[in-house]
């Protein structure tokens, strides 16, 4: 605790010192209004940006009075003729419009704030920047403002609904950390070629799909799966969706990319921004358990349904649950209240410093995040058992022009994450919470020992606060050097760039786990019987993983304008070396060339090739050629539009097509070699065979899966057609894209995987899938006087289809996966409930499971009298997935407001969860929890209104995959809301600050779901989704 306190003190002190230092510096500069003669009709003033720096080039006019204009100069000052009571209008691109009423005071200081939606002329593309007008590929971008309003630990929390083409589903409300030795090494080196298996990731909360694929992540141009950055440190996030935009990734170019640009150094006086915020997280979608009285009655009913004679709970016992007269033997514990807290804090501190001269620029970001989990803590422990995350981030960036032609940029990124969880593990606690009935045992006995029974030998509260803790640490260091050399003197337009990046990650965990006995009180309240086991606190160090990433890149570029011809060319060579734990380094090498040309900025052409290789394929088959090309036509510059239609500022049509690859992550680990494992291999266990009567260990060698000497990368032919329009004096921007991507050579098991071969078939390059879709983004920004408002929305349609997967004979078309959407769910078709004994006797049933009234009736689709796999049919949706996000807001007199509405349509979800929907799940000789859902069960009395099958505690077929459990997964969320207020300059300036902003924000405020008994995204057996309410302050110098 002390250690933690000191750490916080150091951070706070550091911040305060910085503030003091700089505020002293800025207070020296008190002259706001330029000296000089001011006539009575003139207004003088100074325009400042949010950091109090002079803002040049601001247009100043008088409302309703044309012709009178002025512009702020380099010092931000202006003079304008204006009469009293007139309104001065301040306008500057990228800033919200400000109006000032001229009263007595004729010397003004005006602060202008940047618009919420950042408008940039030059945007980041892969390894480059490109002016928006030249772009032919499909890229969507969000900037800092749209990210920082989201209280969350990963920047991914801010992305749902923000970017066209990116579909996200949250799968957990909290991180899930690796705490086992050599974490999942076979998964992440890809011993098994499954697409999407990547390196260990810090994202355990979101499933992402960019146009249906799992995108590659780049941080400042380097491929690294880092997701836990603070949004405040991020300049922009782009998704690169088409072949042209990602081609330089070579063998990883198929999946699209998420490209993060962190805040980089900018010239100017120091800009210092400090943000502190505190959020409260509140779990959503918790299920409602039955009262013990209902539970006992319904369990009796379930057992009677199963044919058991005699009551499980006698009438006497049921009464005890009702009256609570015997709380130790007939407990009634609200476990959710017992082990969960109402809300848990999430606090974040962030400091950004940025500035420099033209020749030397710097930026430093510091960030501290402290997230606590939803579990209760105990005062009796001297340590924390609750799940938590503490994260320290530093990102420093220095850019120096060494000479006129040489630029050196150095970037250092460091991240320290410390996680904690109860010794029993978050997942165990969450699943035990779901399955432990309220009457399982009392929390504690009269003698203060843990309650428990012979079957439930681990007390749920003791799992939370009495099982010690597991701490996990991860350390990341990333160092980046960029050298830029301008060879203009040598060949006009020629320049070179070199990048070298080294990144190291080490993860380990400390396990201090313990366990206490649980006790069951005897009927006469005298004796305690112990159960379970008692283990004193362990202390073990677990090396989880160790990884090294090398990336180096050389670029030679040529940019030249010949009259109306503009030419860009780029040669890129790069190599990426990834070493995970003890496995051989995986080496990716790309040699690529890219060229673009345009004529009069009207006709555009672009092409790229990439010769890309990976060293884990068979020698001679390691390199492949990937290519892409694009064309564009700026109609807006053609005279038939430019001269005739004034409301069209830009109208560009663009198309790209290319052949991309998806290898590396699914290459497997040298699977072209037929290899044998020995018993030191962690992949396969249990094949040592004891020798003779001594049973001494006999080692074993086993043949691995069949070698695939032809293994190669998957490929895709991707086509994108889009347009960008800028209308109504650039107030309305519309971007639309349609795409058709054909993925082929997809790795899968061959159809004729006949078991006679005696081994496991490796995946081969077989399958073909197609993804098609359309995306539309619309942005409208305008102002009424100084009421600035905006709306930006994206709408997306996505449809996939299996074209080929080497399918073998199926007796019915409906059973074929070919021709249906990728990942289609197949199941029985439910047809109501069996209502009578006669009906039960007649209906077809699954072999071994004779029907009873109240069971789900399945359609016997092939009319053979039994229900089996051949009666399955597609039960998912054939409709294209539709998802959207709408961000809207305003800025008015220092107030700013934004909100994000986000939703999905045509989504189906399979809801059946044994604990929640069936209840009384049997395990370890006892019965599990049941929830209010089962109250709607079928009984002879409720036969006509029942929505759930009859109760049972045995296995039966009601919970087989069937259309009964398919529900609409459509939902609409008020995902994010944010309201901020910038304190007036005249208040903050005297105390030496440039600005203070206070704000409140919230995440997951309101959800409207088609099926609302569970959260539409996070499943009931995962750590629940959190609603976060957040307050914060931002101080700028």
């Amino acid at each position, binding site marked *: 605790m002390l250690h933690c306190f000191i750490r916080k003190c150091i951070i706070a002190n550091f911040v305060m010192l910085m503030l003091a230092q700089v505020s002293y510096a800025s207070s020296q500069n008190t002259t706001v209004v330029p000296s000089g003669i001011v006539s009575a009709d003139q207004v003088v003033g100074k325009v400042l940006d949010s950091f109090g720096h002079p803002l040049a080039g601001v247009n100043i006019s008088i409302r309703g009075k044309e012709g009178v204009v002025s512009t702020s100069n380099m010092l931000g000052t202006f003079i304008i003729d204006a009469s009293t009571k007139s309104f001065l209008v301040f306008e500057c691109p990228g800033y919200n419009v400000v109006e000032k009423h001229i009263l007595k005071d004729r010397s003004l200081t005006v602060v202008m704030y940047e618009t919420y939606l950042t408008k940039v002329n030059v945007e980041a593309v892969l390894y480059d920047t490109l002016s928006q007008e030249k772009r032919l590929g499909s890229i969507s971008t969000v900037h800092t403002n749209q990210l920082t309003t989201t209280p969350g630990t990963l920047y991914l929390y801010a992305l749902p609904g923000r970017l066209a083409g990116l579909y996200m589903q949250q799968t957990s409300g909290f991180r899930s950390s690796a705490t086992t030795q050599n974490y999942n090494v076979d998964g992440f080196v890809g011993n098994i070629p499954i697409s999407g298996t990547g390196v260990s990731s810090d994202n355990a909360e979101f499933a992402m799909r960019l146009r249906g694929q799992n995108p590659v992540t780049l941080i400042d141009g380097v491929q690294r799966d880092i997701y836990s950055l603070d949004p405040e440190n991020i300049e922009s996030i782009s998704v690169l969706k088409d072949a042209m935009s990602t081609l330089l990734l070579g063998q990883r170019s198929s999946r699209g990319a998420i490209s993060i640009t962190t805040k980089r150094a900018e010239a100017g006086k120091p800009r210092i921004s400090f943000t502190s915020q505190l959020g409260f997280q509140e779990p959503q979608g918790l299920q409602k358990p039955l009262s013990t009285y209902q539970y006992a009655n319904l369990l009796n009913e379930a057992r009677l349904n199963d044919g058991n004679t005699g009551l499980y709970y006698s009438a006497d016992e049921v009464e005890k649950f009702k009256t609570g007269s015997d709380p130790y033997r007939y407990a009634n514990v609200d476990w959710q209240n017992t082990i969960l807290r109402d809300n848990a804090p999430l606090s974040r501190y962030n400091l950004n410093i940025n500035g420099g001269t033209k020749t030397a620029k710097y930026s430093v970001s510091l960030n501290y995040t402290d997230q606590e989990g939803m579990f209760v803590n105990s005062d009796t422990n001297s340590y924390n058992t609750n799940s938590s995350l503490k994260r320290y981030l530093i990102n420093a960036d220095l850019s120096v022009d060494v000479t006129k032609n040489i630029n050196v940029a150095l970037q250092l990124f460091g991240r320290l994450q410390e996680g904690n969880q109860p010794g029993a593990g978050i997942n165990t606690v969450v699943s035990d919470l779901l399955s432990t009935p309220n009457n399982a045992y009392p929390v504690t006995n009269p003698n203060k020992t843990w309650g428990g029974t012979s079957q439930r030998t681990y007390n749920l509260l003791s799992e939370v606060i009495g099982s010690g803790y597991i701490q996990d640490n991860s350390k990341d260091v990333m160092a980046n050097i960029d050298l830029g050399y301008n060879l203009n003197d040598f060949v006009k337009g020629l320049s070179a760039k070199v990048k070298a990046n080294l990144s190291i990650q080490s993860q380990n965990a400390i396990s201090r786990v313990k366990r206490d006995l649980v006790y069951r009180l005897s009927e006469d309240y005298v004796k305690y019987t112990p159960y379970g086991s008692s283990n004193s606190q362990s202390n073990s160090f677990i090396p989880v993983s160790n990884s090294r990433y090398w990336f180096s890149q050389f670029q030679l570029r040529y940019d030249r304008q010949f009259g109306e011809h503009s030419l860009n060319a780029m040669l890129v060579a790069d190599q990426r070396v990834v070493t995970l734990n003890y496995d051989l380094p995986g080496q990716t090498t790309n040699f690529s060339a890219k060229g673009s040309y345009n004529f009069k900025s009207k006709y555009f052409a672009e092409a790229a090739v990439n010769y890309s290789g990976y060293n884990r394929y068979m020698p001679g088959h390691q390199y492949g050629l990937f290519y892409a090309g694009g064309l564009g036509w700026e109609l807006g510059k053609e005279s038939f539009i430019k001269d005739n239609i004034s409301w069209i500022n830009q109208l560009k049509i663009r198309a790209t097509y290319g052949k991309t690859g998806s290898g590396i992550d699914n290459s497997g680990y040298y699977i072209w070699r*037929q290899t044998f494992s020995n018993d030191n291999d962690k992949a396969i266990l249990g094949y040592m065979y004891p020798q*003779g009567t001594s049973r001494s260990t006999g080692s074993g060698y086993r043949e691995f899966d069949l070698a695939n000497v032809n293994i190669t990368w998957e490929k895709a032919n991707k086509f994108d057609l889009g347009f960008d329009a800028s209308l109504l004096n650039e107030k309305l921007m519309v971007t639309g894209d349609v795409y058709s991507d054909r993925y082929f050579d997809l790795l899968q098991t061959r159809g004729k995987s006949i078991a006679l071969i*005696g081994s496991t078939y490796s995946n081969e390059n077989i399958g073909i899938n197609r993804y098609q879709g359309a995306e539309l983004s619309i942005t409208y920004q305008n102002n009424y006087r100084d009421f600035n408002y905006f709306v930006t929305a994206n709408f997306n349609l996505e449809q996939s289809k299996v074209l080929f997967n080497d399918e073998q004979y199926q007796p019915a078309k409906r059973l074929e996966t070919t021709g249906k959407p990728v990942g289609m769910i197949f199941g029985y078709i439910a047809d109501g409930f069996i209502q009578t004994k006669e009906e039960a006797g007649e209906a077809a049933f699954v*072999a071994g499971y004779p029907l009873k009234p109240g069971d789900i009736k399945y359609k016997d689709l092939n009319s053979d009298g039994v229900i089996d796999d051949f009666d399955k049919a597609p039960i998912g949706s054939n409709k294209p997935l539709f998802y959207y996000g709408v961000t809207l807001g305003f800025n008015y007199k220092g107030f700013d407001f934004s909100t994000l509405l986000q939703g999905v349509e045509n989504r189906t979800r399979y809801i059946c969860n044994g604990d929640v929907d069936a209840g009384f799940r049997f395990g370890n000789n006892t019965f599990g929890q049941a929830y209010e859902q089962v109250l709607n069960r079928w009984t002879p009395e409720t036969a006509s209104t029942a929505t759930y099958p009859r109760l049972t505690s045995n296995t039966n077929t009601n919970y087989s995959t069937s259309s009964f459990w398919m529900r609409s997964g459509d939902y609409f969320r008020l995902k994010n809301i944010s309201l901020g207020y910038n304190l007036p300059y005249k208040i903050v300036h005297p105390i030496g600050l440039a600005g203070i902003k206070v704000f409140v924000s919230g995440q997951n405020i309101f959800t409207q779901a088609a099926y609302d008994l569970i959260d539409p995204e996070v499943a009931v057996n995962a750590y629940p989704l959190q609603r976060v309410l957040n307050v914060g302050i931002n101080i700028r110098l």
Partner: protein
Amino acid sequence: MKNHYYIIFAFLLSGILNISCSNDYESVPLEKITIDFAFDKNDSIGSKASWFLNDIYSKLPEGYNSIDGNLLDAATDDAISIDEGVTTISKLATGAYSSINLISQDMKWADYYAIIRATSIFVNNIDVVPVKDTLTSGLNAKYAWKSEARFLRAYSYFELIKRYGGVPLMGDKVRKLGENVELPRSSFEDCVNYIVSECDAIKDSIWTSPIEDPFINSHRPTVGTVLALKARTLLYAASPLFNGGNIDPTNVLTGYTNTTPDLAYWKKAADAAKELIDLNAYALIDSFQNVFTTQNNKEIIFFRQRGNNHGIEDANGPIGFMNNAHGNGKTNPTQELVDAFPMNNGKAISDPSSGYNPAKPYINRDSRLRKTIIYNGCLWLSATIQTYIGGANNPIITSQSTTTTTTKTSYYMRKFMGNWEKSTQYGNVSHDWVSFRYAEVLLNYAEAENEYAGPTESVYQALKDLRKRSKILAGTDNMYGLNSGLTQDEMREIIRNERRIELAFEEHRYWDIRRWKIAEQVCNKPLHGLRIIKTSGIFSYTTTEVFTPIFTEKMYLYPIIYSEVVKNSNMKQNPGWDINK
């Protein structure tokens, strides 16, 4: 000056690009060994090759509670499972399976082909390894290993044909990805001949019986094991299901196509068993219950290692004991099995002269009953077992019970467990799975000989030996309760019953009722347990129906996995299991 920059720049560049290019690592992962390492031309100990062989052993099924915690025998008329509702074992017992809805725990098609592949790899490659060790017989160890591999392969084929009939014979060829594996099934006859010819080919180039240095070798097959496999294979092949009773009379895949039994097959089976008996390497050991818990005793011919533990006790021991003595009572023997045990005078309890007293049903019974079954009133864990209704080991289930299930028949299984009668808790005991033992060979011989030659003296002798070991009284006529002058049919019933009780729970009954083609009779009617009521110290016994298995003709052979039939145009399904009929 400018040139200097270029030089520096170029230098930096090449440095950066070269850093990662140095050869610090091997070009392929050498720890992932290839076949020339496993079968090393320079390995004179052959250690790596022997490790490859070890792995094949580890693929052998472990027996015991293999069907989701239940014994295979719980799917026969000998026992039922304590488990409630529909379970894997109840599906097996009621035929609730099909070619797309398999009971994977026993329908291990792919697993046996995996053994066949691995053994063929061994057979094809072991020759290059220059092993120097020899057995005491002078045989080079690698040829003994090669024969072990061939035995394991033949054994796998036997396990396949008893389940499926004729199956594809793979020969020695090991196929690579992309090679054609659309192979047809070989005829049943070819499969039997292949297994027998393999046994004949290896019996002289394998370990002798009893095995030398059992401390390190006892798990290996010997000549006795090879002969035992041959005898069992020929016995199965001669049995009614395949010999004269083919369920699809003209189908060479499902059996021989003769419509009346061919006694020549029985002769071969009897001769094979006799060959083993004549080795004089094996004997019945004195204590029946210790056969399974004593390592390397003279009765064991082959076993699968499972180690020292109390897993069998934990799974099958009676419920009602606490802590380390807690059992889950999985296997509940039926009244049918209990009634099959004769009195200790050797007479069946149905024989009026047997002296059987229904009021004291467990008095003076064949001692194997006590060694096989835990019943009401017997001693176990220093307690008198109470399986009467409401007794400690058969409680009435309520929320206060420590269990939600209890014996359905009033019986628990005793066989295979340690001698815990006078202990207070379970300890570790050798629980290897004995897959071949001498008692079975005697029974195989008696059965085949009786079918071929009738109840000869040697048939009687085999039975007498078994009965003598189980402490059945020899009687004044020294016939151990057997009547002299039995007809062949009467003797058949005696042998079958003897086999049932001697080999109970050893995964024999399940296959015996199939090859005898009596499953349709014995597994199509209700099975019984006992309801024991205790009133003022007196027990009253009533039999009660506990479970009704279902058996139809097609179940004599397992269905071949649907996917194997769909993917392989040459693969024929077994009769009655075709999906698209």
